């Protein structure tokens, strides 16, 4: 077995027992990237030099017998919307093609203190808007299971890098499914924590009331380890909650006998492809076999979540992306004769089609005369969606559904049909609207492509969904399959 194939927890033990050095592990991943990334195209920026420097630092500390934190010496990579001091942070946008932040995101600082070795920055849909990674202004990342297919999005690079073993774990961000949907498409585990669980400081904002940072890894145990390192209150983020962080690895122990799981029937609509449906239902059966009490339930406002999301998120985005005006950083149209022209041209050239589309929708929804009909109305519907979850969680410990209505689609298939693209977020958006945690984990295959199962939990009950996911993973028989596109 190659070093890059080990899980985070396995690498952790090997490093602790000095079976291997961080330099060796880091070099293994850097070599892997050299060989594979030409096909997968997960990385926007590679930081090999910095990675090796950090690996050596960790190794020398370990040699001296210093006590090291849990992720010390393990190579990882970050979605390119997480600010990294003095290292380009582009959001896959022309607007930020050369932007080097003078500060690091809180999660980046936390991982750094945890001894993490950063291999580079990962591709994404521009400003996290998209479901296929095709909206990157630089290039499209490929799905390691089938290089003709998309890895999902917007954190497509983060999912593909983990699937292709180009990083042992990665971070992404999830506003409407941007961690879970690509995790599902790439056959890896991806967690969107509760809104407020992980600091957003330094995450380039898309929709502030929905955005959350979360981990990708190949196992649930690894995801728990990474969550442990990034969770917690941050005085720099007023919306990060000041409550204790539980021991997530501890929470994985034990079985799920007697646990109550709701299956909302609205998450199995006619649009759902029958193979995805079959695979997920088999997965649910497995949970039942493991002793969970599974019951069908109803979440009546589910069908309104997506239209609501596509008002709320673009509205916030239209404001969050207003700052890319060419004055202080990033791209500027140099020929403009005056400031208005500079704003108009810089922004029109700097943003890609989908981003502009969403800015337009959001501006429209907030504009005078339409605010009440769209934005305010959407916030009210958001309340109804939250209430659906509140009443469901009175009865159930968690809710299980497919992560996305389909498996990974082909590159180019949906680029001309924005609405069709939006539909791949159908099942992931509600968790963002309600702010609750949700995880996607591999649950089987359809025609050789991974299918993801989504487990949603109560706010701040990441332990519960991790436990269910872990129990499922331990008892499934398809783990360890290697993505065909890169083997």
């Amino acid at each position, binding site marked *: 077995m190659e070093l890059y194939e080990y899980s985070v927890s396995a690498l952790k033990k090997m490093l602790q027992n000095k079976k291997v050095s961080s330099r060796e592990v880091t070099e293994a991943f850097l070599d892997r990237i050299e060989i594979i990334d030409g096909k997968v195209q997960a990385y926007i920026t590679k930081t090999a030099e910095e990675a090796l420097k950090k690996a050596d630092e960790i190794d020398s500390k370990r040699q001296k017998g210093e006590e090291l934190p849990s992720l010390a010496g393990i190579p990882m990579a970050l979605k390119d*919307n*997480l*600010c990294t001091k003095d290292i380009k*942070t582009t*959001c896959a946008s022309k607007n*930020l093609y050369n*932007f080097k*932040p*003078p*500060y690091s*995101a809180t999660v980046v600082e936390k991982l750094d203190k945890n001894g993490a070795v950063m291999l580079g920055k990962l591709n994404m849909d521009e400003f996290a808007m998209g479901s296929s990674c095709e909206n990157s202004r630089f290039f499209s990342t490929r799905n390691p299971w089938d290089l003709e297919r998309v890895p999902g999005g917007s954190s497509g690079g983060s999912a593909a890098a983990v699937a292709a073993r180009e990083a042992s774990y990665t971070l992404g961000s999830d506003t409407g499914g941007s961690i879970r949907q690509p995790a599902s498409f790439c056959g890896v585990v991806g967690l969107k924590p509760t809104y407020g669980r992980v600091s*957003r*400081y*330094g*995450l*380039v*904002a898309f*929709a*502030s*009331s929905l955005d959350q940072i979360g981990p990708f890894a190949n196992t649930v145990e690894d995801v728990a380890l990474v969550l442990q390192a990034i969770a917690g209150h941050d*005085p*720099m*983020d*007023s*919306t990060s909650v000041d409550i204790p962080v539980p021991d997530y690895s501890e929470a994985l122990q034990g079985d799920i006998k007697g646990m109550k799981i709701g299956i909302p029937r609205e998450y199995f609509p006619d649009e759902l492809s029958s193979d995805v449906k079959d695979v997920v239902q088999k997965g649910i059966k497995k949970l039942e076999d493991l002793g969970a009490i599974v019951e069908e339930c109803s979440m009546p406002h589910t069908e309104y979540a997506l239209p609501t999301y596509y008002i709320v998120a673009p*509205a*916030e985005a*239209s*404001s969050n992306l*207003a*700052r890319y*005006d060419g*004055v*202080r*950083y990033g791209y500027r149209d140099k020929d403009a004769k005056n*400031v208005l022209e500079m*704003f108009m041209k810089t922004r029109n050239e700097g943003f890609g089609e989908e981003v502009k589309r969403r800015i337009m929708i959001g*501006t429209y929804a*907030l*504009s*005078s005369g339409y*605010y009440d009909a769209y*934005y305010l109305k959407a916030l009210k519907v958001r309340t109804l969606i939250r209430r659906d979850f509140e009443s469901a969680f009175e009865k159930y410990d968690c809710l299980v559904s497919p992560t996305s209505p389909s498996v990974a689609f082909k590159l180019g298939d949906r680029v001309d049909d924005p609405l069709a693209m939006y539909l791949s977020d159908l099942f992931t958006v509600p968790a963002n609207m309600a702010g609750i945690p949700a995880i996607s984990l591999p649950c089987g295959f359809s025609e050789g492509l991974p299918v993801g199962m989504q487990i949603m939990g109560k706010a701040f009950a990441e332990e519960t969904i991790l436990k269910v996911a872990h129990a499922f993973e331990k008892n499934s028989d398809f783990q360890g399959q290697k993505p065909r596109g890169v083997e």
Partner: protein
Amino acid sequence: MNQKYETVIGLEVHSELKTNSKIFCDCTTEFGGEPNTHTCPVCLGLPGVLPVLNKKVVDYAIKAGLALNCEIASFCKFDRKNYFYPDLPKAYQISQYDLPICKNGKLEIEVDGKKKTIGITRIHMEEDAGKLIHQGDKIAEAESSLVDYNRAGVPLIEIVSEPDMRSPEEARAYMEMLKAILQYIDVSDCKMQEGSLRCDANVSVRPIGTKEFGTKTEIKNLNSFKALQKALEYEIERQIEVLEDGGKIVQETRSWDESKGITVSLRTKEEAHDYRYFPEPDLVPLKIDEEWIEKIRKTLPELPNERKKRLVEEFGLPEYDAGVITSSKALADFFDKCLEGYDKPKIVSNWIMGELSRLLNANDLEVEDCPIEPQDLVELLKLMDKGTISGKIAKEVFEEMFATGKKAGRVVKEKGLEQISDASELESIIEQVIAENPKPVEDYRNGKEKALGALVGQVMKATRGKANPQLVNKILKEKL
């Protein structure tokens, strides 16, 4: 002004709060640093940053609300006001829209002895923008501009009045009273020249007797009391002229051009303003309970009107004097300090309202920057009382003190200004004056009492004003 019309004025006043750090980050609020040295990722609006509210800003906003008799909201939130301008780093300003922290307040003003209450619609908290420096100074001519974000994120409160004012004088009185109150409660420096107190005026006119408001214009760039009054006077006349000529007032924003003494339209063709306010998702709402409000209420000092009453009742000052002295906290403090060492209130108020104010105005200084300390004035007054110097000389000494910062005693000594109260010294001078001025001497002796004045004047002239006037009178009468 045309007697057929009535003026309606409402003011929007922005006041920078004197916190140490900015409203959403910990950069200093200090005025006048090198450009862009008081900035950080947060106030520069870099990608990924988030605001964290400074508690002091809320405390100060509550304090201002209480001093202006407002209701303090038990629940309020922040909103984003979206617009593009190079001095606005995030291209939105964090402000408060539909749920401001204070509302329904009032303020009492006095114009020509008549008291009037002006309603305060609301007070809300927001962040200031940066500053643009136009190359060549004038925005219209500048080929390019430079942006300094030191001011971006300095906390502001915006105080919006009801359209209750009916003349430029009332608007000025409101503004002066508001400034006094904000200074009394110590939440703002209120330095109009530095822009820590700024004012926009909404003004319209309507035929007397009509109930509906006329179309209003908004006037910006009013950075002194004088500018406020002059701009309003101009704008009112302009509007009346338009109406008299059968025209219509266009609702628009106009800027006061101080040098030309006119208001000019700031309209741009396509700029329809649509701020697209929505709740700021990066900040959580505020709940303000009674306990918090009471804690702030306890810190409220004596306010201008209360203090004025005290000066009248306790020191027997005329209403007018008390009004002038309490119009500024610094002036009133100066007065109180003087009285700690000197017990003639009316004399102190005369000096403050007379010489002190005259010199401050002439030198364009605020009381806070006055080179003369209260105890210095007291020393001077005591020298006068003792007869060391005359009243006239005292004014000369005061000017010197003001100009050099020297103490009264030292000025008197250095310039040899002690009053001559030595009878023998005066006698010889007086004898000489009598000898040189036979005409008034004769007049006096013939019963013209007034002629004595001319002789006293000559003596004073001969002594360069240092002679003790009472003594001169006495000796002259004796000799004649």
